[in-house]
């Protein structure tokens, strides 16, 4: 098992009487992009803080690159790059000063590992004398990633790097992660955006401190055990109400301009659903059988 870089065994954490995470176990392979996908309050940050030695688990064990998160915490801090969810650089230092600070703290120089951050840093270099606090959101994110990488970590842990970030910057960020993966850095990343799951090699879907599943994105989709329909009509608001009241209705979820519908009957065709919708006086009806996406799967697992 030389390739396992992160090994987590039955960790739990309580805050007073609230259980934040419950018996979590998983492993991450070298060079993987491993995603923790789930909403706020699911326990993503708690897991990352335990792995980065910033928080002690109440029970269970975890090690990174063979080092125990409790007894070897100093070693772990040298091999992990961590980008917390909240921007945590020095706002009153400039871009270049922040980068130099982090390089110095880890006993290295910007020059030594420049090729690792080059692609990212070059985009903020024109602003290198600007105070970090005065950067735009996208630029802060790039600086934070550069600082987390400057000591050439084996494992990069990114807590919700794309939260509140627009769709364009999110895409660019994931492209940067892809490039880092090529450099054999193991990446753990958390996100509340379900569509980002497909960009990971494996994901853990997490809700209320428990994993709903750990799988490759493809397998999560393959495991979806229902037939899924995409349904449309002229009056979507009314359509949703009608389908919700349909006696055979299982789930009805809005998805952009269509509804995703599952039926409690196993063997049915478009016809039966169409007939029902027609009987409710809808026009421009469309009922198409579709493949689920990660969000469909997440909701399916949530309601189990």
């Amino acid at each position: 098992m030389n390739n396992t870089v992160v090994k987590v065994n039955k960790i739990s954490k309580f805050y007073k009487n609230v259980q934040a995470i419950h018996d979590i176990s998983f492993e991450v392979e070298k060079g993987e992009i491993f995603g923790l996908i789930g909403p706020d309050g699911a326990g993503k940050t708690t897991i990352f803080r335990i792995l980065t030695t910033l928080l002690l688990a109440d029970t269970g064990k975890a090690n990174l690159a063979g080092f125990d998160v409790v007894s070897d915490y100093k070693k772990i801090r040298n091999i992990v790059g961590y980008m917390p969810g909240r921007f945590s650089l020095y706002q009153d230092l400039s871009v270049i000063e922040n980068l130099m600070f982090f390089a110095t703290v880890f006993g290295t120089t910007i020059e030594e590992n420049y090729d690792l951050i080059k692609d990212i840093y070059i985009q903020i270099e024109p602003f290198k004398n600007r105070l970090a606090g005065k950067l735009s959101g996208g630029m802060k994110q790039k600086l934070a990633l550069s600082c987390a990488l400057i000591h050439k970590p084996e494992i990069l842990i990114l807590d919700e790097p794309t939260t509140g970030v627009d769709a364009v910057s999110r895409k660019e960020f994931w492209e940067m992660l892809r490039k880092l993966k090529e450099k054999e850095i193991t990446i753990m990343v958390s996100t509340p955006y379900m569509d980002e799951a497909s960009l990971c090699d494996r994901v853990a879907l997490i809700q209320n401190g428990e994993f709903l599943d750990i799988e490759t994105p493809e397998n999560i989709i393959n495991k979806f055990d229902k037939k899924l329909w995409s349904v449309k009509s002229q009056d979507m608001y009314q359509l949703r109400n009608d389908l919700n009241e349909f006696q055979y209705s299982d789930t009805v979820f809005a998805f952009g301009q269509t509804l995703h519908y599952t039926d409690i009957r196993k063997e049915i065709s478009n016809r039966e659903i169409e007939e029902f919708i027609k009987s409710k006086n809808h026009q421009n009806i469309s009922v198409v059988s579709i493949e689920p996406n990660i969000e469909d799967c997440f909701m399916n697992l949530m309601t189990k």
Partner: protein
Amino acid sequence: MNDNNDIIIKAIDLTKKFGSFVANDNLNFEVKQNEIFGFLGANGAGKTTAMRIMCGLSKPSSGEINVAGFNVYTQSEKIKKKIGYMCQKFSLYEDLTVFENIRFYGGIYGMSRKDIRNEAGRLLQDMGINKYRNSLIASLPMGWKQKLAFLIAIIHKPKIVFLDEPTGGVDPITRRQFWDLIYKASHDGITVFVTTHYMDEAEYCDRISIMVDGKIVALDTPENLTTKYKSKNMDEVFIKLARKPVTSNQ
């Protein structure tokens, strides 16, 4: 639609400058009554600046803007009474109970005690959380807080509610329940003005505007936009419009 009674927000050449920086550059748009209007744009495109002006919190540098029949230059206090506002991290007061929060916000908007009691009763009934009336907000599940925050933002029956990324970080089921509440509010006559980074949510809107660098570069129904920009969905439209050529060599 040129019937003026149907237009609830009207901006003509709205411009806001901070020094030499132009945050809003000659914005022209109209929002119709009862509409769900999606206000999209990359981070830093100028959405928040425009929203603050519409809420009467900041004045334009030039241009005309009318909100709920009032002029933002001279009648901003009147505007504030006619609108509701909810931002992503605006949670309610955690150390007040559900009812205390309702009473607090109702009070701010000048509702009578009787109205507050009635509306609170209806709201708690609708959400099915009557028995949590006297529970602290801190003790409620995350998803409930968000929904409750929305219902409280419209407790005074505003003409327009402004929602700034209301569903960030919310689980997918709650996110949809939240949109059900938005639809209902719009059905009940409240105009909804919403920003979001979820492009599937953009498709729930009646019309959408997309801002890039302080300008509105597109404004139409989601369907027309996807046709016009030959895209599968709003995500593609957004990427096409908002992705800028990288100035420095990447």
